[in-house]
């Protein structure tokens, strides 16, 4: 049924339909609406689930790790400082191979205090062994959350569904909310591969000395690499049932593009209009929207960018001392190819600053004029 709801509630609806059994969260703007709705669903009996109130995000993640170890479908949500506080347990969740799903609303880290859109919080967690999926609009948020449970439970790794603060979390859009029966068809009851067993008691997360630890890490890497196939199969199934698919990335007009803009999140929507307008003027613009960040879709990225003269990556984040994080990843992905496209990094839209069509046009023009990509990222839209 189509409803006009905000992006946050796209997540909440998906979690309700996924029949999650245990949720735990600590409120933080701009994530709060997600769990607020879920706690109400529990209270009203719309969900047969336990919502555990805790005193911090560290505890929230610990609580869902515990519940997931007990063999039930779990969910949590956070943002910014909350995610940073979870850091230790993010490693635990993946190391223990628990299929936890978390919504992460991209928000800047302080100081200075800033509650607005910024990607550094989630990208800083790239090495924790979590699958990361970035969303562009409300429908994608709902669909991605449903797929996240299937994916997590297939490969036994946790999944982070990432959405932009306010631009997506708080924006009302028409979202088609599927009925329970259809969702059940796609997402059957959770059958845990690893969980505690009262009849056959054992302790999880025991000591793994040098002869074992490395094998366990290799096993996680293999599981992460298996996501590529698993994701494709799950998306095929999803498409069959719901008629939507998103890919690991979304390439638009890249075949003959001179410059390809690359970005993640809601800015991709703005970029679509900019690219279309440029095309109308005869400018050969292209666009790649990054959707899957971990595992990084190296093959798909190489394929999408293979004909580009210049790749302009728009990062709403910064790894100080290097530059934009998406730009680094793309450079790394392309370094193994013969053509080795040039990658220019642009940093803009931090801390909630708007990424307007004008900003993207400016980036496009700058990239178009470049013969070589500069080593350092170019900051666009600075006030000083």
């Amino acid at each position, binding site marked *: 049924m189509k409803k006009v709801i905000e992006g946050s509630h796209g997540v909440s609806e998906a979690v309700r339909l996924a029949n999650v059994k245990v949720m735990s969260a600590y409120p933080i703007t701009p994530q709060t609406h997600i769990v607020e709705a879920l706690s109400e669903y529990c209270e009203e009996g719309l969900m047969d689930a336990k919502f555990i109130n805790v005193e911090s995000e560290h505890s929230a993640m610990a609580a869902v790790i515990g519940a997931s170890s007990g063999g039930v479908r779990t969910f949590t949500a956070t943002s910014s400082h909350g995610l940073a506080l979870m850091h230790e347990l993010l490693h635990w969740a993946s*190391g*223990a*191979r628990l299929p936890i799903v978390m919504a992460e609303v991209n928000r800047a880290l302080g100081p200075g205090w800033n509650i607005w859109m910024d990607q550094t919080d989630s990208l800083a967690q790239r090495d924790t062994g979590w699958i990361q999926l970035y969303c562009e609009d409300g429908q994608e948020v709902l669909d991605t959350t449903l797929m996240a449970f299937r994916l997590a439970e297939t490969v*036994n790794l946790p999944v982070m569904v990432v959405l932009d603060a306010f631009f997506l979390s708080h924006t009302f859009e028409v979202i088609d909310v599927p009925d329970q029966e259809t969702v059940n068809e796609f997402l059957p009851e959770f059958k845990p*591969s*690893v969980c505690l067993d009262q009849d*056959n*008691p*054992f*302790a*999880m*997360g*025991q*000591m*793994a000395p040098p002869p*074992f630890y490395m*094998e*366990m890490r290799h*096993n996680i890497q*293999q*599981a992460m690499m*298996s996501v590529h196939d698993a994701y494709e199969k799950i998306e095929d199934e999803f498409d069959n049932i719901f008629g939507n698919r998103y890919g690991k990335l979304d390439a638009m007009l890249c075949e003959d593009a001179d410059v390809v803009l690359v970005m993640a999140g809601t800015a991709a929507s703005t970029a679509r209009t900019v690219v279309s307008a440029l095309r109308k003027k005869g400018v050969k613009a292209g666009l790649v929207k990054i959707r899957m960040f971990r595992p990084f879709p190296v093959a798909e990225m190489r394929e999408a960018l293979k004909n580009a003269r210049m790749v302009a990556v728009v990062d709403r984040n910064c790894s100080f001392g290097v530059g934009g994080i998406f730009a680094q990843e793309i450079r790394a992905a392309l370094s193994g190819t013969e053509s080795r496209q040039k990658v220019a990094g642009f940093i803009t839209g931090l801390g909630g600053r708007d990424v307007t069509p004008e900003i993207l046009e400016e980036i496009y023009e700058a990239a178009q004029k470049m013969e070589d990509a500069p080593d350092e990222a170019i900051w666009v839209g600075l006030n000083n």
Partner: protein
Amino acid sequence: MEIMVSRSSITTTGNNTGAWRFVRPVYERHTAPCSAACPAGEDIPRIEALVSEKKFKEAGEVILMENPFPSVCGRVCFHPCETACNRAGFDDAVAVNSLERFVGDLLDTSDGSLPFEAKEKNGKRIAIIGAGPGGLSAAYFLSRLGYSCEVFESEEKPGGLLRWGIPAYRLPEQVLDREIKRIESLGVKINCSTRLDSSFIETANESFDGVFVGTGLGSPIMMNIPGEELGIGWEVFLKEVKKGTQKEFKGKAVVIGGGNAAVDVARTLVRLGASVTIAYRRRIEDMPAFGSEIEIAISEGVEILELVAPVAIVQNAEQLSIELQSMKVEGQDGQRAKVVNDGDKKKSIVADRVYSAIGADVEDEWKGAKTVSRPGNRSALYNEKIPVIYGGDLVNADKSVTSAIGSGKEAAIMFDILLAEGGSKAGDEEAVKKTTAACQVGDGQSLSFEAYIGGERRNVVEGVVKFEDINLNYFEKTALKDKNSMKADLNGFDEVESGIDEVSAIYEAVRCFNCGICTDCGICSLFCPELSVLTGNEGRRIELEYCKGCGICVCECPRAAMSLVKEAE
């Protein structure tokens, strides 16, 4: 794909973490400040815990363990428990007094069923002089210890001050009768209209093994002013009203005094139809009467004239003229203001009647009794062979109903120690001190009968639970909902305060922190990282094989019912 996780099926029960321990948690009963403040030494946190569980009968039985007069005390006690209540530091004190009345009034023992078995009669007989709260309590506790008690009362009905001194609008007679009947059901014989004088003691050993003297203060304090004989004594007046010989008085009355007796007389006069002025030599805030009583009196129309001392009463035709010396405050006299004559400023007021209510004193007959204020300090005077113990207002520093009840209980325990088989007079003083110290409720004035007869309260550890000992994280601020509330009716002697209902009682009891007692809330077991808190038929206990002495349970205990003790070296 195989999922590699580290796991171990080796049981950790082989890891006796208890060996790490150098301190151990123990469940300990601590005394709540309310109980320590209660002159009758009631186990208040236990009572409120039972009320909160809707176990009203059991709650009543816990009161009866220490106090035979719950319905009386629930009306007339000045409730020092509420002043001491730890909850007062959080939001409002628990309405302990209202709860006592609620529990007491529900307690039906009219079929003679009492919650305890009296000991077998030991053949010893105690004479009790005065059927006031002190004497009746002494008889109640002595009977439970196996003594045969005979009470001698000068008035035609038992109750003493409870019957004659406290007006019916505060304490209806049927409430008092019900509780006295319960005491009689233990086999106590009350001889009314039988006045004994002190010469009785000299020959008492012929028929008795001990004598309790609880005659109260029978001698009104005189003002020593000219015309004093024109006034009426408070005790005479209140008794006449109770007996029904005074039914109406529409004139103007002046009451001299500032204690509860003065306020009782004033409020009684209001009900007879009089317009009443209280004349007091200090300020209103210095009046010894309970603050709440003063407020009610004012609300009922009693006028209070402060800083005036009567110097003479003069007959003025049909009326009386009271000459008053104005006073002024000059410094402090203990809790009260010190007042001196304000030059020679005088005033006079005219009234139809003057009542003197400045207090009462020991009758000459019993002047030998000594004032006592702490347990164990009460000494027995011997008449050749048998112990004689004084109690109630006669000797108590604190002249209150509940203190009188406490002194009756203390006397009963003392008789039992002094008359024990093989007891010798020489060791008596020591034995009394030692035993009563073991039964003292916290650092308070009262003794616990339950502790004396070897009940659970015997195991209370020293000290009183302080506000800082309570783990406030487990409590939510809630406003005091309902106390005994006033309904003004000045046309008769119907009870003025109405009690609280069941819903309010439970709400109020739930507010109680239950300082120092385990209510089986389960927080300790919830937090124990070693799952070492065991529950079962024998109650809560710690599995010492695995308890590593982290102390989390003790920190988390909401109500200071646990302690950490050092392991023996």
